[in-house]
């Protein structure tokens, strides 16, 4: 029951919310459903923490699941609260009204929760593919030229990528079957977990499977050079969706990779998947870090920054070790909070200045001081400055790389951090400072928007100074799954 509830609620919400034609009602209903979903997730997580893993046929929940579910719940509450204010300018249209928006968002949420809860590698794949499908329409929601283009590219590139992941899944299944496992348990998580440690999997097949999985889910995570869809989709989607894409969808894809990493490293040793992850992580941070320097569109820059941070998480995962996993997970969470804050800020900038071109915005500090302050917090956090939380997680990952004497990884990491810092600070300073621009008559921001941004900022600060005890427990459970 606990396992099914987090899936049923958004599904029901998606259907029900379509019946509310009135915007306000739709807003309220969506929020209520989201809170209900969070409560469901909360009780599930509590149950897992106190009573151990929950196992079902196709669904299950362990520490890692809990961690990502908490992440999803938090960001979706923030995004939806932000959306209630953000959508106020939206008219009615086919597929383009608030109720459709909420319906699609709830579907999207359903698929992501599904990814985390799946107990079967096949179901995992199905849910991953479903995330693409559910979010594609959201990316193209505005139906402008850019949105349609981005939506198409997103759909095509991710579907192709995911197709390779399917092939990888099949090869892994093959390896399991060849190792003598029954057809029913060869995709099942618990079965496989027992299998990889007790049976001898053909290492060649496992490696082949992992390569395909990496290319496939890696596309969804946004590893360079499979990241091409990401800046388009994140920049063109409505802001709350951008936040969800960057802050939780990428994490879900990373979650899928983590699951495989666990299995593969037990089957063929941790070096093989680790090295590949570190390689793609490095490629991602270097390329994305450099591209951040030359972006003109705020949301595009944020999207590249997501690529960069996914690279960091991949490095943490690939390095492994106590700190590597810890850092990767912590960074997953921190990045999602910081990135959603930044996307919310970007949404406010668009409302205020009517553009996201960073070279056309200036004097923001004077005309929109609160937004600027929030953006500043987000920007400082995302470049890994204390006292914000990403400093801690980046420190953790770096510590692991140096403790393994991986000096090159550490050095590249540090240099990229500086490049990204340069990029972000350059763009931000030029937006925030200078004489105030003539802006269109004051757009009133709703209290909800500020409350959301403030909450995110407070979370960043809080996790940067002291990680709450309850979260540490969550983290410990998750890391114990990974190790």
């Amino acid at each position, binding site marked *: 029951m606990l396992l099914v509830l987090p899936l049923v609620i958004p599904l029901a919400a998606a259907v029900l919310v379509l019946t509310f034609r009135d915007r306000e009602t739709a807003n309220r209903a969506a929020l209520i459903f989201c809170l209900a979903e969070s409560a469901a997730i909360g009780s599930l997580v509590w149950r897992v923490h106190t009573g151990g893993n929950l196992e079902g046929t196709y669904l299950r929940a362990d520490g890692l699941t809990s961690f990502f579910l908490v992440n999803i719940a938090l960001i979706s509450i923030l995004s939806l609260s932000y959306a209630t204010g953000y959508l106020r300018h939206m008219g009615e249209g086919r597929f383009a009204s608030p109720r459709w928006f909420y319906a699609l968002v709830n579907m999207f949420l359903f698929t992501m929760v599904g990814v985390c809860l799946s107990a079967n590698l096949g179901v995992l794949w199905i849910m991953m*593919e479903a995330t*693409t499908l559910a979010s594609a329409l959201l990316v193209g929601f505005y139906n402008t030229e*850019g949105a349609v283009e981005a939506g198409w590219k997103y759909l095509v590139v991710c579907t192709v990528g995911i197709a390779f992941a399917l092939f990888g899944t099949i090869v892994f299944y093959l390896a399991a079957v060849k190792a003598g496992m029954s057809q029913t348990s060869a995709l099942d998580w618990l079965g496989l977990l027992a299998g990889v440690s007790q049976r001898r999997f053909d290492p060649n097949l496992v490696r082949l499977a992992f390569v395909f999985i990496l290319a496939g889910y890696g596309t969804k995570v946004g590893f360079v050079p499979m990241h091409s869809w990401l800046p388009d989709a994140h920049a063109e989607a409505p802001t709350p969706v951008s936040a969800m894409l960057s802050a939780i969808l990428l994490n879900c894809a990373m979650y899928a990779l983590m699951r495989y990493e666990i299995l593969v490293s037990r089957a063929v040793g941790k070096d093989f998947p680790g090295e590949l992850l570190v390689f793609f992580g490095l490629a991602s941070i270097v390329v994305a870090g450099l591209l951040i320097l030359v972006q003109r569109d705020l949301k595009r820059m944020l999207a590249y920054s997501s690529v960069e941070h996914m690279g960091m998480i991949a490095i943490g995962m690939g390095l492994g070790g106590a700190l590597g996993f810890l850092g990767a997970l912590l960074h997953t969470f921190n990045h999602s909070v910081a990135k959603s804050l930044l996307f919310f800020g970007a949404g406010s900038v668009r409302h205020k200045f009517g553009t996201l071109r960073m070279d056309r915005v200036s004097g923001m500090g004077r005309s929109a001081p609160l937004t600027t302050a929030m953006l500043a917090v987000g920007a400082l956090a995302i470049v890994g400055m204390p006292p914000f939380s990403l400093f801690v997680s980046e420190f953790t990952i770096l510590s692991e790389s140096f403790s393994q004497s991986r000096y090159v990884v550490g050095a590249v990491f540090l240099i990229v951090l500086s490049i990204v810092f340069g990029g972000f600070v350059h763009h931000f300073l030029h937006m925030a400072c200078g004489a105030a621009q003539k802006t269109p008559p004051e757009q009133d921001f709703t209290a909800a928007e500020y409350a959301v941004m403030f909450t995110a900022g407070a979370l960043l600060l809080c996790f940067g100074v002291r990680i709450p005890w309850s979260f540490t427990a969550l983290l410990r459970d998750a890391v114990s799954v990974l190790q």
Partner: protein
Amino acid sequence: MEFAEVAAGKVVSTSAVFLMMTIVLLAVSRRVSTAILVFGLQSAIITAQVAGTAFLESSREAWVVAGLIFAFKVLGIPYAFFWLVQKLKTSRDVQAVTSPAQSVFLVVLMIFVSYAVVRSYAFGIRVPEDALAAAVALILTGAYLMVSRKKALIQMLGLLVLENGIFLAALTTTFGMPLIIEMGILFDVVIGLLLMGIFAFRIRDTFEHLDVSRLRKLRG
């Protein structure tokens, strides 16, 4: 029932050759409708293979899968494609960036590569070499179609071919995955195509063409 078993065995073993032929046909087809028909044919061959396997293994699940594939990939999807072509009112040309001769050359090369790749693995897992090679070749061809054809519809088709290849690979190596997973995958494919169809309409409406290589506003 000797004969039926022999026939089923033949179907399974020779289908690879037929699939190779469809690949070459896809490479040279210039018209959208031809490509769709070839795809339908390809799906039919795969259906036959599944059915053959189902018969040989006498597995009920496999029969269900065969039925599903027949319903969707042989009938439903080609029909939907034809409907799309009609609705979108686009030119019939596939708008390739390579000439048919080049395409054939590349495709044959891919088939060759597939054999080379498969050989190194097939030995370890003891499966029919031809069928697996055909599967890999399908994957590669699907990828090739997506890269080399500018029209949105053919990209969708390329994706389906790729999917077919993956399915075939699953079939030949493991006699298919659990039924519910297969159904889920198929469901995803269908929904994916539906969405791509929606986007095809939107692209047509917004840009008044279907040439995806001209969608280049977002870059850098």
